[in-house]
């Protein structure tokens, strides 16, 4: 079977795509909080997330090969805002 160029992305893409719930859990761990406490539209800044922790999260999520721009994440620091960014990138790669 020939490998088409479109297949290559799929090969390097993470086995498990990033989910909204994984993001919620990652954020909660950074904040020493229970995931249930992270509401979709809560300002993550108000919950105690700072820029360095946010950057760390963005770096973690980009490890699978997603090209994420931190500045986009800085603009909308909510779980819903960030999920929109991630899901758009993952959709573009799919």
């Amino acid at each position: 079977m020939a490998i088409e160029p479109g297949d290559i992305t799929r090969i390097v893409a993470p086995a498990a795509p990033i989910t909204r719930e994984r993001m919620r859990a990652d954020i909660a761990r950074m904040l020493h909080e229970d995931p249930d406490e992270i509401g979709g539209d809560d300002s993550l800044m108000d919950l105690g997330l700072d820029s360095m922790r946010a950057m760390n999260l963005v770096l973690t999520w980009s490890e699978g090969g997603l090209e994420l721009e931190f500045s986009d994440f800085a603009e909308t620091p909510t779980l819903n805002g960030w999920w929109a960014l991630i899901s758009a990138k993952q959709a573009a790669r799919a």
Partner: protein
Amino acid sequence: MTGTPEAETFPLAEAQAGLWYAQRLDPANPLFHAGQYIELTGPLDRAAFAAALAQLVEEADALSLRMIDDPAGPRQCLDPAHRPALELIDLADAPDPLAAALADIARDMATPLDPTRDPLAAQRLFVLGPSRHIWQQRVHHLAIDGYGIILLTQRVAELYNAARTGNAPGNPLPSVRVALNEDAAYRASEKRAADGAYWQALFADRPEVASLAAGNPASAFTFHRRAVEIDRAAFARLRALGDRVNVPWPDVVTALAAAYVQRHTATPEVVVGVPFMARMGSAAARVPAMLMNVLPLRVAVPAGAPLADYLTGVARSLTRARRHGRYRSEQLRRDLKLIGGQRRLHGPLINLLPFDEKPRFAGLESRLEVLSTGPVEDITFTFRLHGTDGLRLEVDANPDLYDAGSVEAHAARLAQFIAAASDADTLDTVPTATPEEAHWALVTLNATDHPVPDTTLAALIEARMRETPDAPALRFEGQTLDYATLDARSRALAEALAERGIGREDIVVVALPRSLELVIALLAIIRAGAAYLPVDLAQPDARLARILASASPKLVLAREGDAPRFAGVPVLSPAAWPRDPTGTPLAGPKPGDAAYVIYTSGSTGEPKGVVIEHRAIVNRLEWMREHYAFTPADIILQKTPATFDVSVWEFFLPFLTGCTLVVAPPEAHRDPVALARLIRAEAITTAHFVPSMLAAFLAEPSAQGLSLARVFCSGEELPADLRDRFHRTLKAELHNLYGPTEAAVDVSYWPAARDDRSLSVPIGFPVWNTRLYVLDEQGRPQPPNVAGHLYLGGVQLARFYLGRPDLTAERFVADPHQPGERIYATGDLALIRPDGAVVYLGRSDHQIKIRGLRIELGEIEAAVMASGLVRQAGIVAREDRGTKRIVAYVVPEPGADLAILKARVAAKVPDYMVPAAFVALDALPVNANGKLDRGALPAPDFAGTGQRVPETPTEQRLAALFADQLQLATPIAAEDDFFTLGGDSLAAVALLLRVREAFGRDPGLGALFAQPSVEGFARLIDAEGQGEDSGLDPLITLVAGDPALPPLFAIHPAGGISWCYGRLARALAPRRTVYGLQAPALAPDGAVPSSLEALAADYVARIRAISPEGPYHLLGWSVGGIIAQAMAVRLRDLGCEVGLVVMLDSYPCDVWRGEPDPGEDGALKALIAIAGHDPDRLPALALTRASVLAFLRASDSPLGRLPDAALDGVVRVVAGNNRLVRSHHHRRYDGTITHIRAGLDHQGRHLSPDQWRAYAREVAVIEVPALHAHLTGPEATAHIAPTLARLLAAEDFKEPTCATAV
């Protein structure tokens, strides 16, 4: 101007405002540019790139900002004409296109701009070849911050990639207006007020801010940069550690870098600056603009804390700081009033960039080089992630504060520190120095191995004495001993000691003043094989008894009269010493035997006896002899008291060298006048000074211009300005030595040469077979320039503290770096300079030094407590008004009589350890840690206790001098004692200099010690004045100098008194005897002579009586010059040799003859002028004898202290001189007149030295910038004295010529 008047203007964002003022203050500084370039390799689509850039500058409107300097405050507007167009620079044909591009970029970055006029940004594309380009961006910091540049770069890449791939380019960058609106909203918000309150509370105590280098952190025009890669494995460990403790790895790195800074400042806490993007969660998150803030981060590094705890603690502080991170640090500085000077909010910057900034251009390789991110005030540590697991450290530093070498060192050391910390459980186990630095500090610098014969002082000296038996060995007060005699007398005494059973490892006390016998005693003791123990008879019996009890000496060598001080120990006084050896064999010492024992102050109150062996002191002396190339021609001065170990080399080095030792008279060591005389008279080549005494010595006029081969300093810190003053004053090498008594005198040396520019004069490098370590608390070597504890090792270490194994074990410890060796903990703090020289920084304990004498405050405290009069005592050395003094703060026992406290303490400790003041308090102030709060102790009141107001003019004047010298504002009573008022012996030396200037005489230092009260010392001054010369005799000695030099005779001006020449006489170097001739008519019965010729003849007779042989040097001011010329003619008549004839601004009688005799009014005016006042400025003063005399009494002129009869005499003499001058007719002097002209005077009057040409063979004119009336003042003397000294020297060495005139 391109902006239109209608253009909308905005105020500056807070972040911009700080930069605006900084750039306005430093308009030529190009470091306000942020800049970077990206090298693009591959087929660049130039059209797509140009389109992407055009789109970028359209979106990023901050790039077209223009500043407006409005009187109401700076504003800005968007100026489309300032929008940067892409410049295309084709260098493809250049020989080296890359180099040409980089040179162009460097030039561009180094060009400052005016933000009100010039475009703030530039976008430049260099074509190096078909597939090689460099894209440079340069944007003024007012328009952008580091994060903003990344946004610009990424946007260009995004637009370029979209054009190349056909994908959507993403959202445009928002306008700068969004950021400005946000800024305005924040400024007005409650959030800002809350943020401000947070920071103000956190910094309410205004912590001290330390950094890695001293100096003013103001950005230079360039900076140093060194980059280094953090070890990949270590970085991976740090990330894993961060994950484990749930701290983002960038915060882990920040915390470690802060700990690294703390290692260098040695403060419990540091404040570092952490750049903060200030965008998170804001509408301005994607706006390229200047929004960045610097957060001050307080970091304490507690010893022993687990690394995880430390990291989580710092991370918590960082999170809190970021939560309040939009509050500007400039504003916080203003809130805290840390404005101006060097008041800083934070030290080094630690900047983490935890993302790969390299842009991704489709089909191209790119390489990013960040050129500048703005001004570098101090030092910035930037950590950049590259790829996914690489971390690069960039160190940028201000070149005014750091040299390139130390920047390189910091890069390597911090990388090493972080790598080591990644593996550690606690930072305590992480060394500061790199392994290379540790090896250099411990081994390379201490490679001092040098062969020294394994012998004894006695053997070396005996060999030398036999070699040159006839050479002079020892001189003291005019007596000289040759080596043969010294050998015989010291051997005879050694035999006498041996007969008494004294030999190896016995101790013999020496308690003799400086004398021939003292030197003989020391030599005899070591030749007998014993160790000598010098003791000071001035110390109290109690302390002496403790020393004797501890040392158990076999014998005491002391004068007969002092024998009772040594109850229980046999005393052998010099009268009983045999002079001729019998030839009995002497066992002599072995190299490992004790050579001497010297007691130093001990912190427990008990003096400590330091035992030094022969091997140790032989090393020290042989090093010195060879290192400084001593020869038998040297003449070494012995002036240090034997109880101070500096004396050891003074005593013995001469006899190892075969040269001469000159022993200064007792007490001369603290008398600069006596020392200068001795050094000159004995042609001393080598002398030692404690720095504070050197300062006093250099201030002594007669020391000016002295020439020696070398001068050694030790005992205290040598200040840099003293080194420079030394080289301006004396001609000699200056060497700074360092060493405690515990290590055979000195262990390090530094040539403090004329061209040494060290701001802290180092103690230098180790001597032979010696190690100097600067260690941290864990005993690890410190890197260069980092303070640590100074330890000494090597052959010179003392054996132990006599009879105190506990103290010995505490200070002499095992060398952790040389198994089997010992090191001595000096208690000194030091650092090693990058050139290897050690610099002394201070004490780590309460030991202090006053005038080179080592003092343990604990010993004083013990003495104070032992008085039984106080419940609590705190002893401090405090510096008030420039003088360091010991002050005892005490809480008295109820009902205790503190009047006797000083006497009780003085009975226990030597005089130099008795506190200058005792201050009674209800309780001692303590700080939070329960320690004595030194800052809260009141300044001692040195007011005297006397009642009687000074009465006589001498008392009044002397009281004023006391107050002046001691800087006392309170009135001084006649009974007050100079030393009780806070004076010490150095202040006493300075006082005597002033006394000499004011009174023209000086009873001497010994007299002041004997009579330290105002009334007592005034009596001595008066007595001296009325002694052999009342000050008004016709011939007085102004200065007694070298008898080999022909004296200078100074003839009085119009008033008949010649005291005015005192200053000039004292300033002459070499010191020469200067006599003053004064009018005989000053005496009540003195007649005014009939003519000036008769007066000159009388004076010639007087000078020939005192000095029968010529040549006669003559000098006179004003009328004195006229008389000098007449005397020169008269001397030639008599066939005498005339030397110099010097006139201070005298003019021939012809010019005065025509003027009317000023009469008595004129005489009185002249008297006022002689006293140093301008009579024309005292119109209210009635020109009567009574009122003028009253005025002079009230003034500070020495004339005011003359008895009435003498003042009458002065008025008479002034009038008489007016008459004599008018009737005098000059004869020609067939020689040279040297005329010193007052260059600032005589405007509009025809007075010229040429007018003397008719009356001399030659007139040599020297002009000085002074008024006639000020010719003997300090400024004019500074001009005249060196010239006069040179002329006198030339005259003295002139070949005697036949008299040319008869």
